[in-house]
C-alpha cells in the first residue's frame, strides 16, 4: 500500500505542477509541456489506483491508453497551432 500511496502522491504533485505551469507561464511551448506533465500526473494516479489489488484493474489501464491517444493528438494539434502562430508573426 505504501508504494501505491507514493505513486499517488507523486502523480498528484506532477498534476499540480503542470496546472501551475499552464496558468502562470506565457510561452506557448512551455504551456504545451505543462499540459503534458499534468496528463502524466493523472495517468500515474490512474495506474497507481489500478495496482491496488493483486490483479491490476484492466479497466483503468484501458482508460489510460485512451487518454494517451487523446493527449498525443491534442499535443500534435497544439504544436502545429503554436508553430503557425510564430511563423505568422515573423512574416
Amino acid at each position, binding site marked *: 500500500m505504501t508504494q501505491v500511496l507514493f505513486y499517488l502522491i507523486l502523480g498528484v504533485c506532477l498534476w499540480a505542477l503542470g496546472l501551475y505551469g499552464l496558468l502562470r507561464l506565457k510561452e*506557448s511551448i512551455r504551456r*504545451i509541456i*505543462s*499540459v503534458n506533465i499534468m496528463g502524466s500526473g493523472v495517468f500515474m494516479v490512474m495506474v497507481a489506483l489500478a495496482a491496488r489489488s493483486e490483479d491490476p484493474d484492466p479497466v483503468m489501464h484501458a482508460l489510460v491508453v485512451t487518454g494517451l491517444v487523446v493527449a498525443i493528438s*491534442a499535443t500534435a*494539434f*497544439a504544436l502545429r497551432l503554436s508553430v503557425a*502562430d510564430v511563423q505568422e508573426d515573423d512574416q
Partner: protein
Amino acid sequence: MTAALIALLLPLFTALCLLLLRSRSGVLVIVTSLLTLLAAAWSLYDVTVNGPQWLELGDWPPPLAIRFQLQPITALLLVFSAMIHLLVAVYAAGSQHSKTRYTDFWPLSCLLQGSLNALWLSGDLFNWYVTLELLGLAAVALVALSGRKAYGPALNYLLLSLGASLVYLLGVALAYGRYGVLDISLLGAMTEADTTTRIAWWLMTLGLMLKAALWPFHLWLPRAHASAPTAVSALLSALVVKGPLFILWRLWSEGAPTELAVEAGPVLAVAGIAALILGGWSALRTPWLKSLVAYSTVAQLGYALMALGLLMYWQLPALDAALWLFVLAHGLAKASMFLAAGELQASLGSKRVSALRGTTETMPVAMFAFAVAGGSLIGLPPSGGFLAKWLLLEPMFETVNHWPWVVGILLGTLISAGYVFRVVALAFDRADPVPPDFSPDRFAHWLALLPALVVWGLALISEPLIHWLTGVPL
C-alpha cells in the same frame, strides 16, 4: 434508439466522407443536417411514446458496458443541436459575407455535431471525457479557420480546454478508484458523502466550469468566440458551451449524494449571479460588437448555472425545466444574435459597436433580428427567455427568505437590458447613419431573424412544453 443512433452517425460519416473525398460541399452538409434533424425528431417522438431507452454497446453487461441512454431531455437536445446546425449550415453556404464557404468548415462542423450528439447520448464519466475532447478539438480547429489573427486565441482555448479536461479526468480517476464504476446511474445508487467523493466531484465540476466558461473561468471565451468566423461563433455560443453544462447537471442531479449537492448548490448559484453581473458589465463596456455578444453569453450562462445551483440547493426537480428552457432559449437567441452581428459588421466594414449608428434605416431586418433576440435574452414576455426566468422565479416567490436570489436576477436583467438597449438605441439614431461599405445580404438577414422568431414562438406552446419538461423522469 435507432433514430438517435442515426442522428449520431450521420454527421460523423459525412465528416469522414468530406475528408476522404477532399470535397468541401456545403449542399451535402445541408442535406445531411436535414436528415439528422428528421432522425432526431423521430427519436423525440419515439422516446415520448415508448419512454427512456438504453443501448449497451457491444452487448456487454454493466458495469463493464458503455451505455447510451435516450431520455426525453436527450432527444430534445438532439433536435435542438440539429436545428441550430442546419440553420448555421444554410447561413454558411448562402450568405455573401460568409468566409467559410469552401473551407474546412464543413467537415469540422459535422464532427462538432457528431461529438455533441455522442455527448448527449452518453451516460458514463469516461465517455464524457472523450466526447469533451472531441468537441474541444473540433471547436478549436473551427476558431482557427479565421486565419492568423485567430491562432493565438485558438491556442489559448485549446490549452485551457486540455487543462480543464485533465482536471476533470483526475476527478474521474478518484471517483472510479472509490466506487469502481463509471456509469452515472450506477454511481448514483452507490455514492456516499465522504471526503474522496467530495474532492472527486469538485474536481470534475471545476474542469467542466472551465470548459463551459462559467464564471470565474470565463476569460478565454470572449476572445475565442469573437475572433472566430461568424458561423462558427454562432455554433460555439449556441451549442458547444452547453455540452459541459449538460454533464454538470447529470453529475450533480443524478450522480451525487443529496448532502453534497445541497452543500455545493449555493456556491454554484452565487457564481451564476456573479457571471450575470460581471459578464453583463463587460458587455456594457466593450467597444467591439462581437465581444459584446460573447460577453452576453458569459452573462446568460449565469442564469443556467444559477438554476442548476438552486435546483441542487433546494432539491427542486421543477427547476430542471427552467434550466433547459434557458439553454434552448439562449441557444436560439444567441445564434440569431451572432448571425445578425456578423452580417452587420461585414456590411459596415467595422467591428465597432459605434458603427451601428442608424442601422435600423440601412439594414432594418438584421437589426430587428438582433433586437428580437435581445428581447428574449432580457426576458421580455412572451419570449422563451421570459418563460425560463418565470420558472426560475416561481419557487422564490413562495418563500420569503429567498429574496436575495430575486435581487440577483433583477440586477442581471437590468444589465442585460442595458447592453441590448445600448445597441438598439444606437441603431435608432437615424440623424447621421453610418453608410454600409458593402451591399447587405437580405437573405442572411432573414435567416438571422428565424431563430429569434422561434424563441418568441416558444411562448405559444409554453404550457405543453413546461408540462413535458417537468414531467421528464430522471
